[in-house]
């Protein structure tokens, strides 16, 4: 190892948690069912409390997770293959690494989700309190329309995100 590289200091921790939960929305709006998470983003803005921040990230990167404020929860929303189109899966980020069923990137995503999460947790110095909500897709080609199963599952996807947000929301301290 280069001595100079070894001498680099860790990133400074980021400050306060005015944001209770961040929702990181993955996908591409012009890639068929891959756009489903983006589509529910608009309708969720009115349903979620103001201390829940939604952010479109396209392809999830380590930096996206590093910028989640300490103390805040995180919900990652993405489309997926390997599950039935329209089916919704909700997984805790805890234990994602080493799952025997694996979570592999579909195409040119460079790092698998467990690796992205693991790197972010390591660099943050503490585990992320979060969940991933994924909707099974059927068509990921160019185009803005959804397959029928995904179209029918947009409301359940919204509900699953709301539930996931509630489950990762940090506890509010009661009155003294």
């Amino acid at each position, binding site marked *: *190892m*280069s001595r*100079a*590289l*070894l*001498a*680099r200091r*860790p*990133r400074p921790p980021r400050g306060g948690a005015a944001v209770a939960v961040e929702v990181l929305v993955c996908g*591409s709006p*012009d*890639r068929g069912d891959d756009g489903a998470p983006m589509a529910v983003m608009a309708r969720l803005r009115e349903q979620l409390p103001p201390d829940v921040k939604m952010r479109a990230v*396209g*392809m999830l*990167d*380590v*930096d996206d997770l590093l910028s989640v404020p300490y103390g805040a929860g995180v919900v990652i929303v993405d489309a997926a293959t390997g599950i039935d189109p329209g089916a919704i899966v909700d997984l805790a980020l805890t234990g994602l*690494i080493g799952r025997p069923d*694996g979570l*592999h990137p579909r*195409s*040119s*995503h*460079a*790092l698998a989700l*467990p*690796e992205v999460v*693991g*790197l972010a947790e*390591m*660099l943050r110095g503490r585990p992320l309190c979060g969940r991933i909500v994924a909707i099974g897709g059927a068509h990921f080609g*160019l185009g803005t329309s959804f397959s029928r199963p995904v179209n029918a599952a947009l409301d359940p996807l919204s509900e699953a995100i709301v539930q996931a947000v509630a489950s990762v929301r940090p506890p509010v301290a009661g009155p003294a």
Partner: protein
Amino acid sequence: MHDLDLASGGSGDLAIDVAMMTRVEGEGSLRLRVRNGVVEEARLEIFEAPRYFEQLVVGRTPDEVIDIVARICGICPIAYQMTAVHAFEHGLGIEVDPQIRALRRLMYCGEWIESHALHIYLLHLPDFLGYASALELAKDHRPAVEAGLTLKKAGNQLVELIGGRAIHPVSVRVGGFSRTFRRSEITAIRGQMTEALDIARQTVDLVAGLEPPAFQREARLVSLRHPGEYPMNEGRIVSSDGLDIAATDWLTEFQESQVSWSHALQSRDLAGRPYLLGPASRITLAADQLHPLAAEALAATGLAEEIRTNPYRSILARAIELVDATAEAIDIIDAYEPPAQAATPWTPGPASAAWATEAPRGLIFHAYELDQRGLVRNARIVPPTSQNQAGIEADLASFAPQVLDLPMDQATHRIEQLVRSYDPCISCATHFLNLSVEDLS
């Protein structure tokens, strides 16, 4: 590693099937068969679904094409945009402002920085240091992974600054950009580039000290070469055996063909010879045009010849290019003055348009025919990985006998490491394919 299926047939025999290559971009596999020390079969199988971009752009305007081809790959969208826009501008006879030219080069620097940092630190370095993944590497060498992520972020932000967004940027237009950029916008990123240059120079020190597997071969290397700058957006296509043709003339020397084991078309020269593209080719064929800081870094390693002959040294070639791209980015930022207009006006019309640029993984070629209305009549998109595929297979065949005596897991690791040396982007390689079905009944 995962999804491995290994079987040994005894001394001198080796069968390696890596059912799913990890830490390469996209979906591919590797099949290698050696009998009595002789390689019978070396196949890099690319089975990611064909992507019909060459047909998707038919009937579209040049500006639409520039946005569409950026969607071919999330890792190297600039390469597709730059190749397409230069092809159209050359075909239509459009001159661009020198500052537009500089901005495009700056944007391409961002993609090189992001792509090379990702590959060096998160995809390839684990191989050299004996880790299964970047995550495992980070447990013991966190500063190195942080350095890689810092570089990657700097590259992404450079692309986002000029392209409007880091993934699939949207600002490139025929004749220029969709808007002009104030000097203050461009100089705002200088501090980050200075930090990136510092890390890039340390990266060279780091990877120059890695011990690569012993392997030497004489491959035919191909890249662009420009008389006044390190090849990126412009230059002539040259080779290590004397080829020297215009960037528009790829089709006069090379051809694509279909092989049964891959969804990607393979490229060879017209004589059927494989060749290799990428950082090692560029360093070999254009080192005299490196930025002085990059040239100095290369000279200090004393490994230029090894970069040419040992593909495992490609990680060092990428590190040298990291220095080149970050140093040049700073120079461009310092010299930037806003152009008089965002884009040179132009008139749609018929044209034959072709061009080649240098993607992080190597030379990429586009050719388009525009009809009377200026709409695309047909398109040819030749990405670097499909050009490298035959050369990778040739290298695999040369290298495989050296690992016969190793335990199977080590042999597999060495082979995978070799494939990753070319940083294959399988997503890019699987473009439009003419399928034929043979009826054996």
